[in-house]
């Protein structure tokens, strides 16, 4: 009995002398310590498990009170789970002890932390007790943030992926809105553009053409249509432009030269409608003025 006891103690001393080379302890007959596979990148909240397999001779036991107490803490590392199982093994008994540690310690920089040293109380068949010390296990603690743990909360991510929102319809609406905004902006530019920076837009005849296009064919609308056309001529001429001014108008604005005859036609039509009382059908007049204003607009833009 005494011999067995000596063997056991000798074996344990050999194991302790060997530690912290855990892999070497694993090779000791009768004792096997299986540490976590990864000793780096451990973060706050991680759970690390150590498994200790111990072969004891027949009659020797590990007292229930001899295992580390669940809930014990050391340097911010808490033993959160203790599981003991035993089975027959040849002449003796094999005890398998699982110790789960959770890391509650924190650090702003990577540091070496340790799973605490643990003690196992064993009693031999003759009632003699001995203590087996399981050595510390060092590991590298990795902070969640580099500079400050205070930012950890910000950087925390949900453990569960939130359910995805159906965005296909939103994409369609987004497309419609983008189209509306773009076309609205283009329209605003077209309407309000200054000739100085957009020479082809915002001209007097473009303005007149837009106004005339919107007119409905009523007797009153013909006067308004002529008003817009005359206003465009006046703007280009720099004053009131009348039929007798056509030549100087064209001379002053050569871009309208190709449409000289049509300009004369417009003034004749204007005189007939406004001053000679030769009222034509309103729809015909509006149609003619639409066509003329478009033509003069093209001259204005230099594309006629």
């Amino acid at each position, binding site marked *: 009995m005494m011999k067995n006891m000596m063997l056991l103690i000798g074996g344990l001393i050999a194991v302790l002398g060997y530690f912290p080379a855990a892999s070497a302890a694993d090779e000791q007959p009768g004792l096997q310590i299986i540490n976590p596979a990864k000793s780096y990148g451990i973060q706050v909240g991680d759970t690390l498990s150590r498994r200790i397999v111990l072969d004891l001779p027949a009659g020797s036991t590990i007292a229930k009170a001899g295992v580390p107490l669940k809930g014990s803490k050391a340097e911010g590392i808490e033993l959160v789970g203790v599981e003991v199982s035993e089975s027959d093994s040849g002449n003796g008994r094999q005890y398998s002890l699982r110790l789960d540690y959770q890391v509650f310690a924190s650090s702003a920089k990577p540091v070496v932390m340790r799973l605490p040293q643990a003690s196992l109380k064993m009693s031999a068949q003759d009632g003699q007790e001995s203590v087996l010390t399981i050595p510390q296990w060092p590991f590298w603690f990795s902070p969640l943030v580099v500079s400050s743990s205070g930012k950890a909360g910000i950087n925390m991510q949900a453990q569960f992926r939130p359910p995805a929102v159906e965005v296909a319809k939103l994409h369609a609406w987004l497309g419609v809105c983008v189209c509306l905004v773009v076309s609205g902006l283009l329209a605003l530019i077209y309407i309000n553009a200054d000739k100085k920076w957009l020479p082809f837009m915002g001209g007097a005849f473009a303005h007149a053409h837009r106004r005339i296009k919107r007119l409905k064919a009523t007797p009153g609308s013909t*006067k308004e249509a*002529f*008003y817009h056309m*005359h*206003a465009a001529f*006046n703007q280009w001429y720099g*004053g*009131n432009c*009348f*039929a*007798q001014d056509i030549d100087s108008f064209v001379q002053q604005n050569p871009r309208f030269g190709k449409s000289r005859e049509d300009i004369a036609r417009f003034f004749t039509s204007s*005189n007939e409608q*406004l*001053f*000679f*009382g030769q009222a034509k059908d309103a729809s015909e007049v509006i149609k003619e003025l639409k066509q003329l204003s478009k033509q003069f607009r093209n001259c204005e833009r230099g594309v006629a």
Partner: protein
Amino acid sequence: MNTVSNDIELADWRTKALKLESEIEKVIVGQTRAIRLMTTAIFARGHVLLEGGVGVGKTTLLQSIARGIGGAYERIEGTVDLMPNDIVYHTYLNSEGRPQIDEGPLLRAGENLSVFFFNEINRARPQVHALMLRVMAEKHVHAFKKDYRLPHMVVFADRNQVEKNETFEIPSAARDRFMMEIPIVIPASREHRKSLIFDTRFQHAEALTQQVEDHILQFDQLNQFSNTIQHHIQSSPVMEEYALDLWESTQDPAKFGVRLEGVEISRLVQSGASPRGMGMLMKAARVNAWLNGRDSLLPEDIHAVFHEIIAHRLVFNPMYDSKRTALARELTAQIINTVVVPGRH
């Protein structure tokens, strides 16, 4: 009168009016516009102020017109001692040595008086102006215990604008009686100027006037025909609105965006065109339309006579009165250039 004969009459008179112009242009060179304006005034039955320097041919022009339209031509010189009775009668000792009173230049021709020329009217006293202006308005005068009717008389008056000594400015109310103030200027063309000084036919004004065919028009029918023109020429609602805008712009040019360089436009005009002035404007514009062979008014018809009818009627703030001739011309030009037709009414 039916429409056809009316049209024939209008065409016939128009031919005569154009012939009168061409006849006058034969003897008066470089005054085409002035001649057109005077023809217009004759057919609109308006009195005319002539503006221009001395020796530019005003008398020759008037004598030519008088010859062309027929009737009598009378003339009086404005002087500082001229009295109203000098126009109505003159006294002298007859061959028997007795004092005798005869009709003056205004009454001498009676109803046959067609052109009365008052040379340098602003040299005459305001009493003379008062008589003349009354006769111009009423076309008759009471003298020798009877009424003298002057129904066909058109007064042409010349203002001496150069000298200020011994002159009496014609007040605005008096200026308003004249339909037009027509500038008679030295022709701008070098050819015309050359003709005037080298062509010997211009040396004898009387002989020159005789070259104009006489009695082209019938002076005693002008009043009636003038009415025919006024009834014949039509104006559209747009044209009427335009005329109203023009009228308003003579009273408040700033409202219509009229600008004159170096002038505070809101303080320039004290009084714009009068209703009589605007009536005369439309009357003359109708004549212009008829002379151009139209039976409806165009804006161009108003433009053709606008300055000559409106400018002398405008009353300016005294601070601008020293430059009134230039400012009036600029203002009327700007009004025509700025007031739009058709307007947004």
